Every structure is written in structure tokens, then in C-alpha cells.
């Protein structure tokens, strides 16, 4: 047996104090296998040891919440006897090392989290962050990573048969060495047929199902919990390889086996594989689990206990079945789908995770402390890191129409069609509004006749300038996206992507961001039902900007979805929430500052939560009353970009806008003050009436016209262009950048 040396402890990324705790729990020195088991369970990725303390600040309960954080996915009630299970997860580190497989297995992992709860996945969205595609030194690599990630997501989701219905993609230099791949998935189940990761019933068999175990992905969880160095690129064997076909079979087999009533508990083998699934199920059930590794289906010969326990081979599940019903309830079903299903152990009453290999006990660890007594750190935090100045640079536009074109061609704003056209966004025929069609994706629920709306948002620029305010803006925008399609938010999931938490100025970003999220979620009454924390997003000491991402899910009772595009000429254009206020300090985080001025300064736009809430309520009511022919919120690039995006529909209907404002033209057109929505309607009086009822400004700013976009302020023409010219710029930009 390998002796445990200080070097060995260090390579497992355990501190001396953590090692001391292990010895204390065991009452002896751990074996090599046990050390491996502890190291993955206590890794940042699995234990949330740096963030747990702060995550407790988030609201997790609400009227619709059936299951909050702590399970494989959060669950909300969507009415009609059905629930939605959803969560977001990151696969940042693997996607940098091997973009295609890293992203593909990211999709695979989150899909298993959903169907392990008994829910059939019906939608995927993704939030992607890359280094700039035209970066002078890293451009070629960034382009390769983007292309690889997108085809990885497409490969997995398309073959599995889940539509990828939305998401977002932005570019910043801080992601040059550390792209972000956050995948959200949502599934639907009957409310009384939810499954939990719980091992109960002493003597019940523990059954391994799905793909065979290989040496891939060993220590993936620990890799995701460390900074990148030059050697990281050598870690390619740590990235798992996905097989969406196998996952599709696993889905069908699991859902079918669940119908037999013979399954007591089930958990997927994701990060930390067999280790995590056994000890977490035992811990939740208050039981022990005994497994025999010789019975585990293996892809390679000569695997050690350490390797089998730590492998992150994909498309595997562990389940506990009712004793005596294994054949009819599990084995028969998995045989039908051509999958392995092997009893590898049983539930015991002693609370221990006992692992045997070749007739010997190679690990014997109390489940509960292994799963739940991971170290908890209150890491020191100071002022959030930021180097951007408060001082406003001098700027004056020479040509505002040209500025609008520059924005529409910029990576963050331009059409992402090149990306989403590679995703099957329609399979399962539920997609009422897919990518870029509306501010939120909308899926019908065939079983209940209702529909779900969902959106993802993140804005690292805002969060860098102020983690607290930036995060609040992000939550507000995501809820607004739902309001714009008429949906009421019922729950949310978050992905907290940050740098190294051991640096106090980074930890401060995390703390402030979580507190901002807590405040906004409480205010909008949107509980966080689960999520993911991804720390150590640093390469060679260079950290990413604070990059929280939130996904909000809402319910729509009925109605035809309202899209972003103007549909008919001659309609009134209303700006709900008005032109908004903005000074130059709050202009420094905008896309205009980024794409046109190449600057970053000051503060993110100012958010008044109360006004935001009233605007959302007004818009929701307007849309639900069927009064809006189009609706689009103002975000990246402000009014001018929102107007252009609304004009780029299949009908090429633009607008003539007449403003009367004292703001400088750049600010008036491009400021990103929140709480504003652009609507086209045939019934402006009724729209204004509803807005007034909510105490919300609803300016009629113009009229839709065929093929043109004109914006005037007090009679002075600021922007004048043709829809088809802007369309070409908007739609071809990404492809052009990728071809570079």
C-alpha cells in the first residue's frame, strides 16, 4: 500500500489541516484510495467550501418551490400536477483543455442531473464566454475554442434529442485563458413521481447502470478546483469523453425503470463519479453503502480501486432498488435498452462507505462526515478587485449611425445565428420561441397546456465595476426578459464563476455578488433552487472578471408568444419606462464604451428596484392582454440597438422615432439604464392606460415603417439607416470574425 506522504497530500490539493480532519474522522491514517476519495469530496467543486457560508444568504424558498438546493436539481411547481426540474452547471476548465468534449460532457452532466430526478429534459440553454475572436495574440485559439465548444454542445444535445433553445455569448480578454461554458437544463415530471438521491432500506441492492468505467476524468473535480498553469494543457486525459447516444438510452431506461416503482433512490455519477454517488446517497439516507469494485463494469483492465472510485466516465448512474424487485424493475428494462445494470453492493445500517476490491476492504469511511463535514472556510475578503478608473474619458461621436453599425457588428451584440443554427432548437416540438425570437425562450408543456419561459443572463462588465450592483442588474434583466413575454418568474438557478477565492479581493467579488443576488432575488420573489459555483477561474495568475450567471424560469398560462420583431408598419412604438436617466459615470460599463470607445470606467447603470418591479408588472399585464405585437427590453447597446434588433425581423419593419431629451446624443441612444421595454402596438391608449395604472412612464416615441430606421431628437436626425444594411452587418459579423 502506498504510504501517505506530505507530498502526496499536497498533490491531492488537501491542506495539512484538512488532512488532520481526515485522520480525526477515520481515527487512523487514510489509505491511498481513501485519500483520493476525501480529496474529491472535499474539493472546492464538490464541497463548496469557500462559498457555502455565503450561499446561505440566498433565498431558497417560495410558493412554487418543491425542492431547493442540495439535490441534483431544483424543482418548482408549474401547475396541472407537473413540476419543472432545472439547474445550471459549468464545465469551464475541461472546455479550455478540450473544447469539444469539455462542452459536450458539460451538457451530458447537467442532463443527467435532470433525469436522475425523474424529469424528462425538454430544454437546454447555455451561457458562453470567450476571449475576443480578434485578440492579437490569442485570437486563433479563441476562435478554435468557440467553434469546438459550439460543436460539442450541438453534438451532445442534438443527438440526445433535447432542444437548445437559448442562451448568450460574450467576449472579454479576461476569458482568453479561461473560457466559460455554463449549461442550463430543464426537465418536466409529474409532481408525484419525483426521484431523489437517497439510499434507504437496509439490505436493498445498490445497482450500477450505464456506461462502463474507464480511466477518463480521474480527478476532474480537483482539476476544476485549481488554477490553470502551463502544465494544465497536459491534463487532457482528465477530460471525459461523452457519448450522447448512450445517454439517450440511459434516459429512456431510467425513466422506464422509474415507472416500475422498484427504484428507491437514484443519483448520477458526475463529478467524483462512484465516490460522490455512493457517499452522498448514503449520507442523505442516513445509511451505509457497501460496494464490491470487482463487479463494476470496466472498460479497461487492471484498474486500481483508486481509479475506479475516482473515474468520471460519463453516462453512468447508481441506483438503489427494492430488494427482490431488481429483475423485473431494473435488469429487465436495462437489458431492453442494451445497457449494463449490475448489483455492485447493498445498503447497510452502519453508516459507512465500505469499498471492497479483490477481496480486501480498500476504503471504510463514515458517509455523513465525508459528504457533509467538508471544511467550511470563511475566507478573508477585502475590497473587490477593480482597476478601472472612475474618471470619465472625453468622447464625442462623429457619426452616430456608424456607431450603431459598430455596435451591431461587435461580438457581444451581433447575431449569434452561426452558433444557434448548429443546435437543434425544435426537437420534441415544444419550442414556441427559440433562439433570438423573443427575450425569453418559450416552450409549451403538452401535458398541461401551459408554457414555460426561461432566460439566462450575465454581465461581467457591470459586475467588474460593481459586483453587487452588477449582479442585481443581471437578476433584474433576467426577470424582465420573462416579464416581456408575459411570464411570472417562479424560480432561478445560478452559476457563480469567479477567480481564486484565496485572494481576498477576489473573495470580496464573490461575497458582494452573492449579496447583491440575494437582495434582488428576495425583492423579485425569485428563489434560487440550486446552482453551481466555479472558482479558481484563473490562468497563470490572471483571473476572470466576476462572472455570475443566472437562469430564471417562469410560467405562462396561455397565449401566442410575443417576439422581439416589429410585425406591421404603421403601429405605435412605445417606450415603457421612458427614455431613462443616465450620466456619464454610469455609461462606462456599456457596450458603447466597450465597442466604440474601447474604454471601461465608472459604474454600471443605476438600478431602482422598485421602478423595475413596476415596469415588469406593467409589461407583463400589457403582453398578457395581447396588446403588444412585439416587445423587447433595452439592454446591451441601449435604445438604438434594441430598436435595430426589433427591426431585423422577417418582415423588415423598422421605425421612425422622435425623442425630446436633454441627454447628450451618445447617452440618449446607447445608455443601458434598466427598467425599459420597447413595444409596438395597435392600441397605444390601452397600453398607456395599463402603464399609468402601475405608475410607469409609457412614452409614445414613434411609429413603425417599412424598411427604415430613423431616430431624431428634438427634430435633429441622429440615426438614419436601412434595415437591410443593418441586417447584413448584424448577421454576418460573427461569421466574418470566425473566418478571420
Amino acid at each position, binding site marked *: 500500500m502506498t504510504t501517505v506522504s506530505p507530498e502526496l497530500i499536497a498533490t491531492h490539493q488537501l491542506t495539512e489541516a484538512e488532512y488532520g480532519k481526515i485522520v480525526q474522522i477515520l481515527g487512523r491514517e487514510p489509505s491511498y484510495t481513501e485519500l483520493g476519495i476525501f480529496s474529491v469530496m472535499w474539493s472546492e467543486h464538490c464541497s463548496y467550501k469557500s462559498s457555502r457560508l455565503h450561499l446561505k444568504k440566498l433565498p431558497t424558498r417560495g410558493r412554487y418551490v418543491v425542492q431547493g438546493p442540495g439535490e441534483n436539481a431544483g424543482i418548482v411547481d408549474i401547475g396541472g400536477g407537473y413540476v419543472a426540474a432545472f439547474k445550471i452547471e459549468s464545465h469551464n476548465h475541461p472546455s479550455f483543455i478540450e473544447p469539444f468534449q469539455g462542452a459536450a460532457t458539460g451538457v451530458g452532466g447537467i442532463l443527467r442531473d435532470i433525469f436522475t430526478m425523474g424529469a424528462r429534459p425538454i430544454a437546454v440553454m447555455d451561457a458562453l464566454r470567450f476571449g475576443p475572436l480578434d485578440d492579437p495574440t490569442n485570437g486563433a485559439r479563441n476562435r478554435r475554442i468557440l467553434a469546438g465548444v459550439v*460543436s460539442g454542445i*450541438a453534438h451532445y444535445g*442534438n*443527438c*440526445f*434529442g433535447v432542444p437548445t433553445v437559448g442562451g448568450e455569448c460574450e467576449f472579454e480578454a479576461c476569458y482568453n485563458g479561461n473560457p466559460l461554458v455554463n449549461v442550463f437544463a430543464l426537465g418536466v415530471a409529474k409532481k408525484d413521481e419525483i426521484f431523489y438521491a437517497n439510499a434507504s432500506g437496509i439490505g436493498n441492492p445498490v445497482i450500477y447502470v450505464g456506461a462502463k468505467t474507464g480511466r477518463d476524468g480521474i480527478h476532474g473535480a480537483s482539476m476544476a478546483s485549481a488554477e490553470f498553469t502551463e502544465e494544465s494543457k497536459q491534463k487532457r486525459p482528465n477530460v471525459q469523453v461523452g*457519448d*450522447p*447516444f*448512450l445517454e*439517450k*438510452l440511459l434516459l429512456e431506461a431510467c425513466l422506464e425503470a422509474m415507472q416500475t416503482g422498484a427504484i428507491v433512490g437514484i443519483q448520477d455519477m458526475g463529478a467524483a463519479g462512484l465516490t460522490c454517488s455512493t457517499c452522498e446517497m448514503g449520507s442523505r439516507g442516513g445509511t451505509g453503502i457497501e460496494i464490491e469494485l470487482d463487479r463494476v463494469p470496466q472498460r479497461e483492465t487492471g484498474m486500481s480501486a483508486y481509479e475506479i472510485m475516482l473515474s468520471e466516465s460519463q453516462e453512468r448512474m447508481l441506483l438503489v432498488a427494492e430488494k427482490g424487485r431488481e429483475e423485473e424493475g431494473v435488469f429487465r428494462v436495462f437489458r431492453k*435498452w*442494451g445497457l449494463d445494470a449490475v448489483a455492485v453492493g447493498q445498503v447497510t445500517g452502519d453508516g459507512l462507505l465500505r469499498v471492497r476490491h479483490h477481496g480486501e476492504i480498500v476504503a471504510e469511511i463514515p458517509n455523513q462526515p465525508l459528504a457533509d463535514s467538508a471544511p467550511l472556510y470563511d475566507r478573508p475578503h477585502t475590497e473587490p478587485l477593480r482597476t478601472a478608473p472612475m474618471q470619465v474619458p472625453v468622447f464625442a461621436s462623429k457619426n452616430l449611425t456608424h456607431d450603431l453599425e459598430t455596435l451591431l457588428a461587435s461580438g457581444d451584440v451581433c447575431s449569434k445565428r452561426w452558433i*444557434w*443554427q*448548429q*443546435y*437543434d*432548437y*425544435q*426537437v*420534441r*416540438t415544444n*419550442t*414556441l420561441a427559440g433562439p433570438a425570437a423573443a427575450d425569453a425562450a418559450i416552450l*409549451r408543456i*403538452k401535458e398541461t397546456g401551459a408554457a414555460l419561459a426561461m432566460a439566462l443572463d450575465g454581465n461581467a462588465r457591470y459586475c467588474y465595476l460593481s459586483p453587487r450592483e452588477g449582479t442585481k442588474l443581471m437578476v433584474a434583466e433576467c426577470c424582465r426578459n420573462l416579464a416581456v413575454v408575459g411570464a411570472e418568474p417562479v424560480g432561478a438557478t445560478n452559476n457563480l464563476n469567479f477567480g481564486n477565492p484565496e485572494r481576498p479581493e477576489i473573495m470580496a467579488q464573490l461575497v458582494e455578488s452573492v449579496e447583491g443576488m440575494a437582495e434582488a432575488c428576495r425583492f423579485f420573489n425569485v428563489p434560487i433552487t440550486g446552482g453551481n459555483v466555479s472558482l479558481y477561474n484563473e490562468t497563470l495568475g490572471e483571473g476572470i472578471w466576476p462572472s455570475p450567471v443566472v437562469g430564471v424560469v417562469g410560467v405562462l398560462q396561455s397565449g*401566442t408568444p410575443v417576439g422581439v420583431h416589429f410585425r406591421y408598419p404603421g403601429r405605435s412604438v412605445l417606450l415603457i419606462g421612458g427614455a431613462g436617466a443616465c450620466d456619464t459615470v454610469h455609461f462606462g460599463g456599456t457596450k458603447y464604451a466597450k465597442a466604440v470607445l474601447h474604454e471601461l470606467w465608472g459604474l454600471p447603470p443605476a438600478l431602482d428596484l422598485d421602478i423595475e418591479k413596476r415596469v415588469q408588472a406593467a409589461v407583463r399585464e400589457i403582453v398578457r392582454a395581447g396588446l403588444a405585437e412585439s416587445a423587447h427590453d433595452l439592454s446591451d447597446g441601449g435604445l438604438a440597438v434594441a430598436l435595430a434588433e426589433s427591426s431585423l425581423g422577417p418582415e423588415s419593419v423598422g421605425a421612425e422615432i422622435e425623442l425630446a431629451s436633454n441627454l447628450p446624443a451618445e447617452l440618449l441612444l446607447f445608455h443601458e439604464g434598466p427598467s425599459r421595454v420597447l413595444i409596438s402596438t395597435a392600441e397605444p391608449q390601452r397600453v398607456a392606460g395599463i402603464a399609468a395604472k402601475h405608475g410607469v412612464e409609457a412614452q409614445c416615441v414613434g411609429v413603425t415603417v417599412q424598411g427604415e430606421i430613423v431616430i431624431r431628437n428634438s427634430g435633429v436626425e441622429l440615426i438614419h439607416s436601412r434595415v437591410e444594411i443593418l441586417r447584413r452587418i448584424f448577421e454576418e459579423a460573427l461569421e466574418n470574425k470566425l473566418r478571420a
Partner: protein
Amino acid sequence: MKFGVVVFPGSNCDHDAWYAVRENLGQEADFIWHDSDNLGDVDAVILPGGFAYGDYLRCGAIAKFSPVMQAVKRFASDGGLVLGICNGFQILVEAGLLPGALVRNAGLKFVCREVRLKTETTDSPFTAAATRGQVLRVPIAHGEGCYIADERTLDELEAEDRVVFRYVENPNGSARDIAGVLSRERNVMGMMPHPERASDPLMGSADGLVVFRSMVSALAHA
């Protein structure tokens, strides 16, 4: 009428076809498992989209050996109506029930979008309810949908009026813009676009229903 929707391991548009037939068309539909060697009492067969057997080796290459495909071949040779959609088209081509082959899209990427299809012939049980030249809005979603065949076969298809649909704007490089073809006996059709996804106005188009409606009336008059 009763439609049988074949389920291969990896089929993922099986439920969509089943739903379109039952809910949007109001006809009966049953699933047929891939290892079954008879089709039961169905009046027509749909091979749905997806990735049968993971589409390993080549799209449809493994599916053609499945027991159910032997039954489908017998059904087709007895004159039964067989519709292959997307992966189903690929399987029909691999199984030799339709000529030609489907290879990687010219753009080398998976493409999901709505396309316009021109109905080239109404002399078929799949398009009799359409009008000649009618343009349908139907989505595509495939990575290997570029239809190819040698020149003689293509000429023959045209001469025998067996090109059912052509793309108005070719999205994948298919020879002569071909989106769907018929067997010589005209009772087997394969098409890359997904009519089952265009069977409900809520989904953006109900133009695809004409394919299923044609099948129902062909069966009613049989």
C-alpha cells in the same frame, strides 16, 4: 387510419411524429420497437428522425440491419406506405429502399432552420393533397442531409417524376436541390425536412400536415 412509428435506440423525433399524427391529424398512432419483426396492423409506417444506433459508422448504416427493417421492406414491397423523415430518410437510403445517399452538409455543420420547399409532384400518396409548385415552410435539422446520387440516377428520378420536394434555397448542397424522393413504386418517400415539426400553427407553420393528410386520403381510397 393507424400509423406505426418505428423506435430505434437513438430515435428522438419518434414522439414528435406520433404527436403530430394523433393530436394534429386526429389519427391513430402506435410505436414499433426496433427488434420487432412484424409491424402489426398498421396502415402506414413512419421512420422518424434521430440518431438510430448512435448513427455510428454512417447514418442509418446499422439501422438497416435491425429486425424491424426487414419487416418494413416486406411492408414496402407489398405496397405499404413508408415515410422516412431525416434520419428515417437516411435509413431508407441505406436499406436500399430509396436511391442515392445522404452525406455531410456542404457547410460541414449541423443546420437547424426553417426552409422553403417546392412541391415538385402531386402524383404521390404523400403530396396528393398539395398543389403542384406549392411552397411549404418546413424546418430542417441535420448534419448529414446533402443528397447525392450519380447523374444517371438523378436523371432517372427526374424523368420518372420522383423528386417530391426541392429546396427553394439549398441549405446543404444537395444535388439538384433535392429535399425528398420517391421509390419507383411511389409508396416509399424519404425527406430531410421535418413535416411533423410543421404540423401546428403554434410552432410557426402547419404546412407539413399536407404530407400526413395526403397519406390519410391515399389510404382511405386504397
